């Protein structure tokens, strides 16, 4: 899932500015599950913005609405009236949701309420960790199911480096050394021979380094002639 964190209230207030009518838009998918931008969070943020404005002697009309997924046009269509009525829209969806809103409603002033951080999972309630770097050429089959691009601080493919200490990465003492995990896993499964092969340099074209990515599935596209 996409994991994000809410920006500081001060930062959000500053980017909203002193406008009359604000709409907070939450999202019911990833950011709900990481407690950053769901319906509850949207209501709390709207209350916070209203109250903070009044504490300073002003006032701000802030409403909130939450859609199932901010990254799908059909869900965004449903809130057209709310968006039109607002001076500023604070999207507390992930960066994709913010952009989808801005693209669907080109006249709307849309600001982000979250910092979208990584692709990861909740390892336990309240704790999320990065797992995937969306590199476009997955090598998990060679590394025992542990990703060296996302989980090794240096993205080594022939790790570990000399900074692996007691199973922790020297860059971040709380992060496990990905290559220690890979080594332990393959050793336990008697597959260490996989590590003896020298992994060649990565083709980063499939990753973000190659430019913004796009996938087209012609077999799924709606053919305009078919619809007639």
């Amino acid at each position, binding site marked *: 899932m996409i994991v994000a964190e809410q920006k500081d209230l001060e930062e959000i207030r500053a980017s909203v500015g002193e406008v009359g009518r604000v709409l907070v838009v939450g999202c019911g998918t990833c950011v709900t599950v990481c407690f950053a931008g769901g319906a509850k969070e949207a209501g709390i943020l709207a209350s916070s913005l209203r109250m903070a404005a009044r504490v300073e002697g002003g006032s701000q009309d802030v409403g909130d609405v939450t859609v199932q997924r901010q990254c799908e046009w059909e869900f965004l269509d449903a809130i057209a009236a709310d968006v039109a009525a607002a001076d500023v829209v604070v999207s507390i969806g992930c960066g994709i949701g913010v952009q989808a809103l801005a693209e669907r409603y080109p006249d709307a002033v849309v600001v982000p309420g979250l910092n979208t951080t990584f692709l990861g999972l909740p390892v336990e309630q309240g704790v999320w960790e990065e797992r995937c770097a969306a590199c476009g050429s997955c090598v998990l089959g060679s590394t025992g199911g542990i990703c060296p691009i996302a989980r090794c601080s240096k993205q080594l493919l022939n790790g570990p480096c000399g900074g692996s200490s007691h199973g922790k990465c020297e860059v971040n003492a709380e992060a496990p050394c990905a290559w220690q995990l890979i080594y332990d896993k393959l050793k336990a499964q008697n597959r260490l021979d996989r*590590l*003896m092969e*020298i992994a060649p340099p990565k083709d980063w074209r499939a990753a973000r380094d190659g430019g913004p990515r796009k996938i087209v599935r012609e077999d799924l596209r709606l053919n305009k002639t078919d619809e007639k």
Partner: protein
Amino acid sequence: MSSTGLSGSNLEAVLAAGDFAVTTELGPPKNADAESIRAKARLLKGCVDAANITDNQTAVVRMSSVAAGVIALQEGLEPVVQVTCRDRNRLAMQSDVLGAYALGLRNILCLSGDHQTFGNHPQAKNVYDLDSTQLVQMIVGLRDHRRFQCGEEIKGVNPRFFVGAVENPLADPVDWRPLRLGKKVKAGADFIQTQIVCNVPRFREFMTRVVDLGLASKTHILAGVGALKSPAMARYMRDHVPGMDVPEALIERMEGAGKGIDDKAERAAAYRKEGMAICVETIAQMREIGGIAGIHLMTVEWEEVVPTILDRAGLLPRPRRTSEQRKEAS
């Protein structure tokens, strides 16, 4: 693979002749002044077979290792240019390698490099396009296959370096380290320099496995030794440097050296004297370990003690290879 005469470097010739080799480190300055390099080079030349020029060590910006290497070379000291994967992609690395060779440099050491969060520009984007093993393979490929990493042929003079890699023998996972060294040898590393070793018995175990794997005959392994300046430095290494097994006995010995000395300056001098003595002893022990082809002496901004330590260790004078002998080795 261990190859003789591929680069014409002095370090290569010394190792090829079977002499016990000596390398050390020279840190470039945090400014644009060539003079400090010349001063250090004058101090070290003649005492070592080659000196590593570090590359933005600990992710702190310093003069580039290629530039500093050329200045050292002009002063008569043979450099080992260190290249990390942190700051450059494969284009920049190959470009630097071409230039370094054209400027007369002949030894390269390939490292992953300390993560930028350790240094003075933690906000920088890091590169890590390649890792150190792939870097070894790439530079060996420029030499042995006359091809760039993309497969394109190099027309004209191709860079022919003596290529080194590093290993941290007591870092985790310890069992994997000899095999990881094997991967670097497979990639083509001509020589290996290890991280500083303080626990010689454990290092002996590591070297036994390395020799058993047949690796010591395929590459030249230089054991890392360090000169401790104080007990505080020993403790810092034990607690903050990964893979550093600093035995308690060593720390106690360092502390003991300063006991009863009240004057701060005198105590500091006593610590340094003990640190140098321990270094000389460690070097002697390293010479007895099978598979060790030399030492890599690291003195961390204390280059001035290098000649003294090497002299006491009986490693001076260094063998002088005439240009004829070097050509013969080619």
